[in-house]
C-alpha cells in the first residue's frame, strides 16, 4: 500500500483504499476540486492547530491555515514527491505563518502584542514524567500557566519546532519543514525546552 493510504474492510470480499495524500495532491495539480476538498478535510485541524501555535490568535490562525491551503492548490504541481506530502504542506504552512509574523513584527512591537506558542510531546520511557496526584493538580495547573506564558518568549521557529514535535514529526522532518539542517532543528528544540525548563523546576 502506498504511504499514507488507508484501507478497511467493508465486506467479506471488499476492500476500499483511500487515496494517499500524495495521490490527492497529484489530482489537485490537475484541478480536481474533490481531491482538494479531501486534503483540506484531512489536514484542516492540524493546519489550524499549527498556525495557532505560531501566531496564537484564532482568527489569524484560521486565515493563515486557509492561505496555506490556497497555496497548496496553486503549487500542487510543484510537489515532486521527494518528501512526504505532510512535510511539504507543513513547510508551506509554516512559511505562511512566519511570513505573516515578519510582516507584522513592527506593528506587534508598537502595539505590544504578539505571542505564540509551541508545544511538545511524549516523554521517554526511561525518563517518565511523574504523574501528578490530586494534591499536585493545582501546582500542575500553575506550571502549565507559567509554561504557557513562557512559550510567548520563544522565537517563532522554536514555537513551530515544538508544535511540529507535538504533531509527531521526527526531528529530521521538522528540519525539512523549517528548511534547516537536522542539527539546527535539534538546537531549536533544545533551546525551546531549555527556556521552558526554567518554569518546571528549581534548577
Amino acid at each position, binding site marked *: 500500500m502506498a504511504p499514507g493510504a488507508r484501507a478497511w474492510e467493508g465486506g467479506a470480499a471488499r476492500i476500499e483504499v483511500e487515496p494517499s495524500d500524495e495521490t490527492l495532491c497529484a489530482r489537485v495539480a490537475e484541478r480536481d476540486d474533490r481531491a482538494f476538498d479531501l486534503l483540506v478535510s484531512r489536514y484542516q485541524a492540524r493546519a489550524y*492547530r499549527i498556525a495557532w501555535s505560531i501566531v496564537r490568535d484564532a482568527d489569524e490562525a484560521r486565515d493563515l491555515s486557509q492561505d496555506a491551503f490556497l497555496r497548496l492548490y496553486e503549487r500542487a504541481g510543484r510537489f515532486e514527491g521527494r518528501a512526504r506530502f505532510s512535510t511539504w504542506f507543513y513547510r508551506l504552512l509554516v512559511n505562511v505563518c512566519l511570513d505573516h509574523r515578519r510582516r507584522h513584527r513592527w506593528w506587534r512591537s508598537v502595539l505590544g502584542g504578539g505571542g505564540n506558542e509551541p508545544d511538545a510531546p511524549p516523554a521517554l520511557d526511561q525518563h517518565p514524567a511523574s504523574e501528578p496526584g490530586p494534591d499536585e493538580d493545582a501546582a500542575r495547573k500553575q506550571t502549565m500557566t507559567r509554561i504557557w506564558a513562557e512559550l510567548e518568549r520563544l522565537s517563532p521557529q522554536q514555537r513551530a519546532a515544538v508544535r511540529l514535535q507535538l504533531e509527531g514529526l521526527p526531528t529530521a522532518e521538522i528540519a525539512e519543514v523549517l528548511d534547516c539542517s537536522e542539527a539546527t532543528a535539534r538546537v531549536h528544540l533544545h533551546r525551546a525546552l531549555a527556556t521552558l525548563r526554567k518554569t*518546571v523546576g528549581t534548577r
Partner: protein
Amino acid sequence: MRHDETAIVPYLRGELGDAERRAVEAHLAACTDCRAIADDFSAVLATLAAEPEPPAVHWGAYRAELRGKLDQRRGRRPAAARWWPVSLALSGALAGVLVFFATDDTGREPRVAELGPIEEAMIGGRLDLLRQYPVVERLDLLEDLEVIRHLDGLEPVKEG
C-alpha cells in the same frame, strides 16, 4: 566530558540510532547536570502534551470560506455572487415599480414637500405686484409678534 545537550530531546523521543542512543545513555549515567536536564525536559514535554486546544472551529464554515477564497483566486465569483444578474434584474424591476407609483400624478394632490417649489414659482411671477405693497419694504415687521397682534386695530389710512 562532551555534553551534546541537543541530543537529549531526540533521545527522549526515541529517535536516535543505537550507537548514538547508547552514547547518550552512557553520558547521562555519568553526568549529573545532563541527567537533570533530561529529567526536566521530560517533565516539560509531558506538560506541553497537555496544553489546551485552540478555540473550536466550525469546519463546515471553514471549508465554505476557503472555497469562496479559492473561487476568488481563480477569478470565479463565489457561488452567492454568481446570482448577481438575477438579483440585479429583480432590483431593477422593483425600482421600476416604485418609480411608477412615485411619479403617477393621476387624481393626487401635491405633497407638502412639493409645495415649496410651486409657491416660489408663483411668487416669482408676481414680484412686480408685490413691490407695490409698502409692507414688503419692511418684511421684518411681519416677524414681530407685537406688530402682528395690533394689525387689526390699525386705523385705515386716509387717502389724500
